[in-house]
């Protein structure tokens, strides 16, 4: 096996086109890494500035009524993490900012893609994109005739006459391609790593994430390399092998991602926003409306407070009834929001399941989904951010309403305000990244699919090997 590995490796590396394409790939790695780091640094700077500006606006809002402050709210932005330099994922298409305010659960808005032209739909180069799309093309060019050329030149009979086992021959061929592809893969990631740290990007990448990310691409490269050799051996004809492999590349990289995404959208249509808003408003009307003095539920709530505290007038209460009413409004609307937003999230999740299960048929989809998941730039990380932000909104609004209720003011005292420094003492929203374990759990279909593909491709290669030297 090592004999064939050595021979094939030497033959491949001697070929001018392999040298040229390898150098081109390395140059592409340098360019995308440099550009990716530059854009990542700009995004990180913008994120830091925006976050500080919003926190400053919150802390310096002065002496205002807590419920007015809840209406003013807070704005959070899509966080930028170190791992995202490797893979942009869905970030350009996800809402970039989210306003957190009283009575209302907003959706993130203003995606980067909305500020781009239609030509942005042709795609954007990143390290992940090069590894997912260009690397397989490079492997195909290396491997399409790696076995078939021996059949076409009739050298296969000479090789067989020397007495090696076909498995040794095929595995040696596969390992030689794999070795070149892996060297380039690790070189690409090292280049990105060096450029990222040389640019003083600050935030370190998490080692476990980086290793998992590399592991994903290692599995991906193994699948493509073994399949390329297997096809070359199965077809025994270079033209047919190349045609088949290129057709597979187009099907997996270009056509299938769009087909699964559009199929998902057709199978699970999401409701119109106006319809959603209307149902939401209807359901909200069934609960207490804190800003509607004519609401009968407010009257009942006030009566219950008077009974509880055994007083006859609201301003005799030891608490500010307005703050409690506002919080009752929040508690009810939170239930309504949970109910309706869960429905929408489930629909979108079902849409994405089509491409998730498509990963079983397409290792590119598996690698793409897993790559952006580990790079923390996928839809699930984004959803987690939205969920965490919503929990923070509820905490913040509740804290403000309770300050109004128990801070020393009476019902109707809307001019009352706590000390202006009190707002600065409230904790800011901190993005807690999901752990790697959680991410790998989310993407279990994908990494299982990659492992399965490695096994199936290797088994197929060995199966082809059984009859390879029978002429």
């Amino acid at each position, binding site marked *: 096996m090592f004999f064939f590995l050595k021979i094939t490796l030497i033959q491949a590396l001697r070929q001018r086109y392999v040298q040229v394409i390898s150098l081109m790939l390395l140059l592409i790695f340098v360019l995308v890494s440099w*550009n990716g780091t*530059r*854009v990542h640094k700009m995004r990180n700077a*913008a994120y830091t*500035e*925006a976050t500080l500006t919003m926190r400053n606006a919150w802390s310096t809002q002065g002496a205002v009524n807590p419920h007015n402050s809840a209406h003013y709210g807070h704005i959070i*932005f899509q966080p930028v993490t170190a791992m995202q330099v490797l893979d942009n*994922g*869905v*970030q*350009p*298409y*996800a809402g*970039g*900012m989210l306003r957190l305010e009283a009575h209302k659960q907003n*959706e993130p*808005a*203003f*995606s980067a*893609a*909305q*500020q*781009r*032209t*239609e*030509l*942005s*739909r*042709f*795609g*954007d*180069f990143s390290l992940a*994109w090069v590894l997912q799309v260009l690397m397989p093309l490079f492997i195909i060019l290396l491997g399409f005739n790696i076995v078939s050329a021996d059949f076409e030149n009739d050298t296969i009979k000479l090789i067989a006459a020397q007495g090696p086992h076909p498995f040794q021959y095929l595995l040696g061929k596969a390992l030689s391609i794999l070795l070149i592809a892996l060297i380039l893969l690790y070189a690409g990631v090292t280049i990105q790593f060096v450029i990222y740290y040389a640019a003083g990007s600050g935030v370190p990448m998490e080692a476990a994430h980086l290793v998992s990310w590399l592991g994903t691409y290692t599995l991906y490269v193994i699948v493509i390399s073994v399949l390329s050799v297997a096809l070359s051996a199965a077809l025994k004809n270079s*033209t047919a092998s*190349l045609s088949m492999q*290129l057709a597979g590349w187009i099907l997996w990289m*270009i*056509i299938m*991602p*769009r*087909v*699964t*995404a*559009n199929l*998902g*959208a*057709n199978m699970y*249509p*999401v409701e*119109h*926003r*106006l319809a959603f*808003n209307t149902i939401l408003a209807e359901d909200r009307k069934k609960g207490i409306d804190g800003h509607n003095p004519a609401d009968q539920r407010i009257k009942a709530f006030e009566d219950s407070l008077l009974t509880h505290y055994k007083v006859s007038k609201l301003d005799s209460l030891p608490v500010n009834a307005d703050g409690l009413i506002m919080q009752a409004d929040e508690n009810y609307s939170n239930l309504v929001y949970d109910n309706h937003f869960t429905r929408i999230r489930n*629909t*979108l999740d079902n*849409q*994405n399941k089509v*491409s998730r299960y498509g990963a079983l048929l397409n290792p590119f989809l598996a690698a793409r989904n897993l790559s952006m998941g580990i790079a923390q730039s996928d*839809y699930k990380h*984004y959803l987690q951010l939205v969920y965490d932000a919503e929990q923070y909104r509820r905490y913040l609004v509740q804290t403000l309403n309770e300050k109004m209720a128990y801070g020393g003011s009476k019902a109707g005292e809307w001019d009352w305000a706590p000390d202006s420094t009190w707002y600065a003492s409230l904790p800011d929203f901190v993005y807690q990244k999901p752990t790697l374990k959680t991410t790998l759990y989310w993407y279990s279909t994908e990494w299982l699919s990659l492992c399965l593909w490695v096994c199936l491709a290797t088994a197929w290669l060995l199966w082809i090997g059984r009859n390879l030297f029978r002429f």
Partner: protein
Amino acid sequence: MHISTIFFLEKKLLIRDKWILVALFLFTLTALWSLHNGQQVYHYHATAADSLQAANNANFANVKAQLDTLDFSHNGRAAVETPFTLDYRLKPMVSRELNPMMAFSIGQNDVLVLHKSARITQPVFSNDFDDFKNPEQLLAGSFDLSFYLLFLFPLLFLALSYNLQSAEKEKGIWINWQAAASKGLLAAHTWRITIRWVLSLAPFIIVSIVGLIWLSDQYNFMMVDWLKWQGYALLYCLLWLIIVWLIHQLRLNSMLNGITILGVWILLLIAIPGVVNTLSNSSYADSSQIDIANFRDIPEASWEAPFEVHKNYFAKRYNKPLKDTGLYSETIVKAYGYMMMTLEAEEVLHSNMTEALLNRKQMEKATFLINPAAAIFRGFTQVAQSGQAHQIAFEQKLYAYRLQRFYHMNDNLVNAYRFKPDDLLAMPEWNPNEE
């Protein structure tokens, strides 16, 4: 060699290969599905636009009913007559003009916000009526007819033509062609490529005609749009005919022919557009988010501005003594000044965002000579009105419409004091098709 002979020979060659018929059938199905996807998106937005209009009509009828019950013979003004309350109760919503050609090219319409609030206090960049977007789906992109034509048609043409002539040389039967068409080999070869080009176009032509039949039933469809779209499509297909013809002149073997055509495909559809896009993304970083976030403070700052500033704004439009010197006069002046200051700040912010987009478009346009697929795609989206250009126009029109509505309500408040049902009927109307 006579064209009819070439046609006859080609027909025999192609019919003999059953795989070609299977491929043509599969590509026709794919093209039909791509059209279906486009139609789904168009119907989704058309239905949303209709629902919005129905909600507008219902809100309008409600307000009209409220105004009809008022007694206008005394001076007391009801809350519903004041601009901000009136606007709040009308809750106007607008949709961007939808061209049914969008079914052919969804373009950027899946990303953009096509339905917006037209309330005077809701800035053009608000997203209360934005559809729920699925970022994973947006990342993958739309499988519409423009995708089929740009990406898949060249592959079908490649499959049907890569081994033309070279296969005959490889099989040793080229000598027959040389003997039959000794003086017109180039012409015969050109005819053969053209016949295969037309054959590759067959699924697209069929689906375009199916699309035309469907379009002719749609509101707002104009034949000239379909013709323009087909014009761009023809240009693109001709480009591929020329590319393949030129590659064949290199007299390569079948495998190299195939690799070269595929190499050009990757270059034109992936490499060049990708590089241009990556460059424009890094040159025009998305920096508007912080400005939009900061806009949150503008209304309050405008309200808190010195009264003199409000008065100046008021005086600019209403250069006459106020009819009403009663309780509301100061509030009226202040509310007007506040709204105009807020709208001005919004216009500045929106202009900056628009300018960045236009610069980006200009930069991309400068690359069109080496980026033909992108040029054709922009052409498609222009015809289908599914690009940023129409979104910019929509948002500018929406801004002007809100201003117009505000002037109508405020002029009435200042000059007539009461807002009667006839004033409601005279409210400016949104016409999405109006230039």
